[in-house]
Every structure is written in structure tokens, then in C-alpha cells.
């Protein structure tokens, strides 16, 4: 982008990147009304970043839930508190692990493909061709992916949480013999819809926006070479992961 002009140092380079990314966010938001004309494209992107990620999200959710069930069962049994297993698993999944792990998987599964796709469009001058045809690439290519990420991420996180609970139930109740009623009744008596379930939904909305912003930004501004696309893809995963975890801390502090 033209904003990154002869940076004097690496620090200034990074700062310029962050600034350019922020400006890019506003350009996307400006293009969102225009992109409503390409609603079908948004639906297609929801399919690609959301529905196609279901398998990995569901598998990982099940295993994370099973591991949580196993680990917490052994820890809680030291204090004779295995009755709290359902509560602890549900709270840690809804509030932290669900949104965060989903965002990390999303960055690896969907973020990289967004970056590579847009990066190759840039490298093969497709984005310029669109502009020549008076089609705004921000509205036609970037904004649908951005919206799709915001739509898909909370839904994926909910699926992840549901599978996680089932995994913990499988380990705690079916295998380790915890009482079924205790597991569910302790969970239902201490988990709240607004302060627990919806906290996770707000978080994953933010993660969806941040991860797709980084992915589209990296793809859109990549140097038009195969090496540039490769670096951009790597940076997408690295920056998305860092941003997810950092924003998670900030949001936890605010939403507590």
C-alpha cells in the first residue's frame, strides 16, 4: 500500500503495518454497504470459511472436551470435588477455550486460505482487472469474506462448545462413572446465559472480525510474488494468533 513508504526502521515498519491495517478496516466497513449487492458471494464465503471448517472444529471440540473432562476429573478428585466437573468444564469452555481455540483453528484453516486466495488474486492482477471493470474489489472480494468471518466464528464456537460438553460428558459420566444427574444439575445451576454463554459469543464475534481482517489485509497488501504470498500466509497465522490471545485478555478483563 502507498502508506508504507520507505520505512526508516523495522519499528516504523511495524507501526506503519498496524496503521495500514486500521485504515484497511475502515475501508472494509465503508465497502460493506456496497457489498450487500453481492450477497450471494457472502453466502458462498460463509460456506467456505464456516461450513467447510465444521469437521475440524467438531473433532477438536470433542477432543478438547474429553481432555478437559479427564484432566479436571483427576484434579478435582484430589479435593473430592468431582461433582463440579460439569460446571468447570462448561465455564472454561464457554468463557475461554471455545472462542479462543476456535479462533486459532479458524486462523489456520480459513484465514490462510483467504490470504492465499486474495494474495494470488493480487499477484495475478485479478484485483486490478476488477477495478478496470468498475467492480470494487473491496466490496466484491474483501467485505464478503470479512462478513462471513464475523457470521461464522460465533456459530463455530458454539458448535465447538457443544461438542466439548459432550466430550466431557463421555469421559466423566460414561467412562469414569460420575453421576449423570450431578454432572448436568451442577452445570445448569451455576452457568448463566448472559454472563457465560453470551460472553463467549461476544468474544468470538470480535475474534471473527480480527482474524478475517488480518487475513484479508495480508492477502490484499501482499507483494505480488510467490514468496510474498507465502510470507503473507505465515504472517496471517502468527498475527491472528497473537491478536486473538491479546484481545481475549482485554475482553476478559472488561467482560468479567
Amino acid at each position, binding site marked *: 500500500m502507498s502508506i508504507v513508504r520507505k520505512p526508516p526502521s523495522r519499528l516504523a515498519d511495524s507501526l506503519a503495518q498496524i496503521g495500514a491495517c486500521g485504515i484497511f478496516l475502515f475501508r472494509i466497513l465503508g465497502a460493506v454497504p456496497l457489498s450487500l449487492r453481492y450477497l450471494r458471494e457472502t*453466502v458462498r464465503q460463509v*460456506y467456505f470459511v464456516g*461450513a467447510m471448517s465444521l469437521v475440524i472444529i467438531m473433532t477438536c471440540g470433542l477432543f478438547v472436551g474429553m481432555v478437559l473432562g479427564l484432566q479436571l476429573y483427576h484434579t478435582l478428585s484430589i*479435593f473430592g470435588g468431582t461433582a463440579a466437573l460439569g460446571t468447570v468444564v*462448561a465455564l472454561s469452555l464457554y468463557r475461554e477455550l471455545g472462542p479462543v481455540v476456535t479462533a486459532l483453528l479458524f486462523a489456520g484453516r480459513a484465514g490462510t486460505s483467504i490470504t492465499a486466495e486474495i494474495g494470488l488474486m493480487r499477484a495475478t492482477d485479478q484485483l486490478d482487472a476488477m477495478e478496470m471493470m468498475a467492480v470494487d474489489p473491496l466490496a466484491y472480494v474483501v467485505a464478503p469474506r470479512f462478513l462471513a468471518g464475523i457470521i461464522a466464528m460465533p*456459530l*463455530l464456537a458454539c458448535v465447538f462448545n457443544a461438542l466439548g460438553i459432550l466430550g466431557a460428558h463421555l469421559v466423566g459420566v460414561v467412562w469414569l462413572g460420575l453421576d449423570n444427574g450431578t454432572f448436568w444439575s451442577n452445570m445448569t*445451576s451455576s452457568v*448463566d446465559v448472559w454472563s457465560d454463554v453470551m460472553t463467549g459469543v461476544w468474544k468470538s464475534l470480535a475474534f471473527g472480525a480480527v482474524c478475517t481482517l488480518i487475513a484479508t489485509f495480508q492477502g490484499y497488501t501482499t507483494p505480488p510474488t510467490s514468496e510474498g504470498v507465502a510470507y503473507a500466509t505465515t504472517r496471517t497465522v502468527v498475527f491472528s494468533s497473537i491478536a486473538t490471545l491479546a484481545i481475549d485478555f482485554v475482553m476478559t478483563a472488561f467482560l468479567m
Partner: protein
Amino acid sequence: MAQRQSFQIGTGLFILLGFAALGYLATQTTSLANYRQGDSYAIKARFTNIGQLKLRAPVKIAGVRVGSVGSIVLEPDKLDALVTLSIDKRYDKIPDDSAAAVFTSGLLGDQYVALQPGGSPDNFKNGDEIVLTQSSMQLEELIGKYLVGGDAGKTGDKAGAKPDAQSGEKSGKQPTE
């Protein structure tokens, strides 16, 4: 055309699945799952100390959940806690001389209100007040009493209009269940 159809169906399924998961989480694994009790009636109870009792804590008779704590407010003039208990309409045969006590489930568990049925022929109606109440047992107070050894003052039960039968002679000890 076939391609377009398939991704649209896939997207629809994905969105449905996502919202189904959200609905499942919200209704089956949270406190909303306890709201299906339907109609309830309210009875009031005053406690000098409710300990860690929270809103929506369970109300139990003989260990069975019959309702939940609807509201907790401090009475400005009497300075004790006025707790409203929402009792499920199904349980409308609770004698009106039943006693309420704040207990802890397990050593470190959450606190709940236990109703101990009395023998009166009349039953609680909406808006009635429980006369016999027993406050939450405070571990610190108990320890303090055993350390000091003597009568540490009346900290335990709030007897209201009818004096509690036990509180006269055993004021030094907390009445146990």
C-alpha cells in the same frame, strides 16, 4: 447451477447447526434449564445472615428441589435479609409452620434454602412469610465461639414473633439440623 445449490444448502445447514448449538448451550446447560418450572408462588423469609446465598439458589425439601430464591433484599428498618422464595405450584401442600434454613451443600458447595416441613393443617399461600428461620452457619463465628468458649451473643437464629424453642437454653451453640 448444481454447484450453487449445494453450497447454499451447505451454508444453510451450517447456520442451522450453529444456532442449534447455541440454543442447546443456552437452554440445556445453563440456569435457564431450571426455569421450566412454570407457575410458582412466592413466600418470604427473613434471615439475620444469609451467608453466600445467591439469587436462583435452589430451595429444597428433603433434598428435592422445589423452587428457587427469587430475590434477596435488605430490609431498611429491621436490617435483616428478606428472601423471597419462588416455590413451584406443584408443591402447594407445604405446612405454614415449616421452617427455613440456609445450608451448604457439601463442605465447599453452594448454599441453598432448606424447608423443614411442620405439622400445621394449613398450607403456605402466595405472599406468606416463614416465621421460623435459621441463618446460614458461619464457620468463622463457630470457630470464634469455640475459641472464646462463652456466650458470644445471639448471632444465629432469627426467631421473629414466635421464639424458637431451642434458642432459649442453647444460645451459645448453633442449633444443628
